[in-house]
């Protein structure tokens, strides 16, 4: 039997790390999942969340290795530590999933989200929107006589704060990409 090739979880922080901390506290975790970019893989991941009653707060996906056909899915989810462990283990079971990383517990990580906000207004409100955009380092990517489209990048909290400020100034539409995240250092 020992002749069989054995591949352990690729890091000790992967889904195979099974020492749990059981508490009832709901936590938010950012998971990075590397998958084969084959048809239906996103449906498998999403189906897992809906089928087993887990939450998705945000989800982004794009191919990151065009030659190797690998995509990275970044999911922000919430649950008790036991549920988060279950989610990771269940994701690890999906055949085209290569690796599951819990960026929330694997040391420091960087999270960014991009948003486009359309703000319609005139006079002083229009000027105030521009001023606030400057403070938030949002760029104006389009302008008409009565509308700006701002582009802002930052943590989800920063985007929430900017959107809250824009609301009374004529926020008409908002599009957000969801979170992309990477661990710090090597």
């Amino acid at each position, binding site marked *: *039997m*020992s002749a*069989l*090739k*054995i*591949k*352990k*979880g690729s890091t000790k922080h992967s*889904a*195979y790390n*099974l*020492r*749990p901390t*059981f508490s009832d506290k709901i936590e938010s975790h950012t998971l990075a999942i590397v998958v*084969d970019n084959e*048809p*239906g893989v996103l*449906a*498998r991941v999403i*189906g897992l969340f809906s*089928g087993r009653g887990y939450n998705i707060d945000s989800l982004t996906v794009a191919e990151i290795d065009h030659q190797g056909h690998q995509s990275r899915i970044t999911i922000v989810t919430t649950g008790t530590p*036991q549920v988060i*462990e*279950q989610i990771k*283990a*269940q994701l*690890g*079971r*999906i*055949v*085209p999933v*290569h690796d599951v990383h819990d960026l929330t517990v694997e040391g420091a990580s960087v999270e960014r989200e991009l948003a486009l906000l359309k703000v319609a207004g005139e006079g002083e409100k229009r000027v105030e929107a521009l001023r606030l955009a400057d403070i938030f380092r949002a760029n104006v990517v389009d302008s008409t006589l009565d509308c700006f489209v701002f582009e802002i990048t930052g943590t989800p909290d920063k985007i929430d704060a900017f959107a809250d400020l824009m609301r009374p100034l004529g926020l008409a539409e908002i599009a957000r990409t969801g979170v992309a995240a990477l661990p710090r250092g090597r």
Partner: protein
Amino acid sequence: MTRQMTGAKMVVQALKDQGVDVVFGYPGGAVLPIYDEVFQQNDIRHILVRHEQGAVHAAEGYARSTGKPGVVLVTSGPGATNAVTGLTDALMDSIPLVVLTGQVPTFMIGNDAFQEADTVGITRPCTKHNWLVSDTKTLSGTLHQAFHVATSGRPGPVLVDIPKDVQFASADYTPPQKARLDHYQPQVKGDMDAITELVVALEKAKRPVFYTGGGVINSGPAASQLLRELVDATGVPVTSTLMGLGAYPAKGKNWLGMLGMHGLYEANMAMHDCDLMINIGARFDDRITGRVDAFSPGSKKAHIDIDPSSINKVIRADIPIVGDVGHVLEDVLKVWKSRGRKINREGLQSWWARIEDWKKVNCLAYSQTGKTIKPQHALARLEALTKDHDRYICTEVGQHQMWAAQYLTFDDPNRWMTSGGLGTMGYGFPASIGAQIAHPDALVINVAGEASWLMNMQELGTAAQYRLPVKQFILNNERLGMVRQWQELLHGERYSHSWSEALPDFVKLAEAFGAKGILCKDPGDLDDAIMEMLNYDGPVLFDCLVEKHENCFPMIPSGEPHNKMLLGEASTKDAIGSKGAVMV
């Protein structure tokens, strides 16, 4: 050295190269090219079922009784959707299946074509993995991958959807040795630190118990052998789930019997009172745990499972070990022996004394009095008259299934085929066909209830066509017995739609298909009737009229822990509280 061939020919070639000897299937428009290839060869036997669900359950019976993957070939649309119940059943019970479905040609996919269904979409949640093959170039590689995924790690059903134009087109055939098996290589070797931790706990434990499951069977006969060695060397009591029966022999001296909702009193009490529980290839299913927050409160729990998601899903494991049961047991034995074969003899001795007291309760006692056959008695006689045969048992789902698990004994793995996780009525008859195909000279019995049996009764045609001597042992109480039992316990004896109305005359039904029918209603005739069934060389429908209102005991009422078992009729009044009533 590449070989050009059509996709349809590739399918047959890949099956041959994977060592497949039997395919269960049903033809249709979208798989005609493959059927044409099946027609032109003699290496693979095709068994024509009467309904696609039957094909999948037959393949399950084949797989469970041989340890090899079962193979199914069905058409698109309704062929595929009819397979869904079987796929879900196999997924829940971790049965390796490779299901091939035809699909409308690629250029018609998405057009609502005739007999089109989104097969990979429909079956995504009920397969371990599935593929839609859009190019003949990738077909043979995908088929080899399919076998690899179905049989590696925790086994399960996979599905390959093959459009008709892909079957007609030609490409190079990829032999299995050259197929990319990707990164799917589940961890089989357990962590040695955790294994040592388990051995240390085993050495010290005063009240240990092995709780084994279907994972031992799925790991292969070597795992059952290692389990026997470990259990017998340590003298630790062992119980098993429904799925794991036969891994440790029922005649073994450390055997406690099955545990769980209808498990034996001594097994459940041992689980509740143990100080070390060693779960080997089981998953703390709700039929096993009863009330989770009162589950075995005083024990340290070790959990060996090849699927990381099974660990800590329901019950927190103190010693989690991810790995294949066979590999892990081998290491456990090695470490235990190298540390000097220590065990807490005194502790074990008094533990066994307590277990012997529980055994005295004699929880499976029944009394066969009067002129009506008790279902337990029917099974006890069946056991007595068949246990020396080369025997395979299948069941349907319900009371008869639990009685079969209680009153029949299993001394070897792969001898017991039952729908555990999904609880699929209609599983047993086709499964018995699959088991008989795999073991033509063995005695294959399907213990059934009349209602379950009728759910896939069309397979009588299959049994007759291939002259399969499957014995259908129907405990006929003219009721959906388990539903009736729950209505009695939970719903004020309002027996809503749990009668089997308008039942057929099973003897005439058998004869209509060219099979033999036997009716038995007198306890005095039972042995002779069973012998008549055994002596008949062909399919038999045995209609055994049994007590209509017998309940299945012992029973852990829903919402209660292991030590609150109901042992008989007298204890049932108000046994299930309002919280338990919402459980199934």
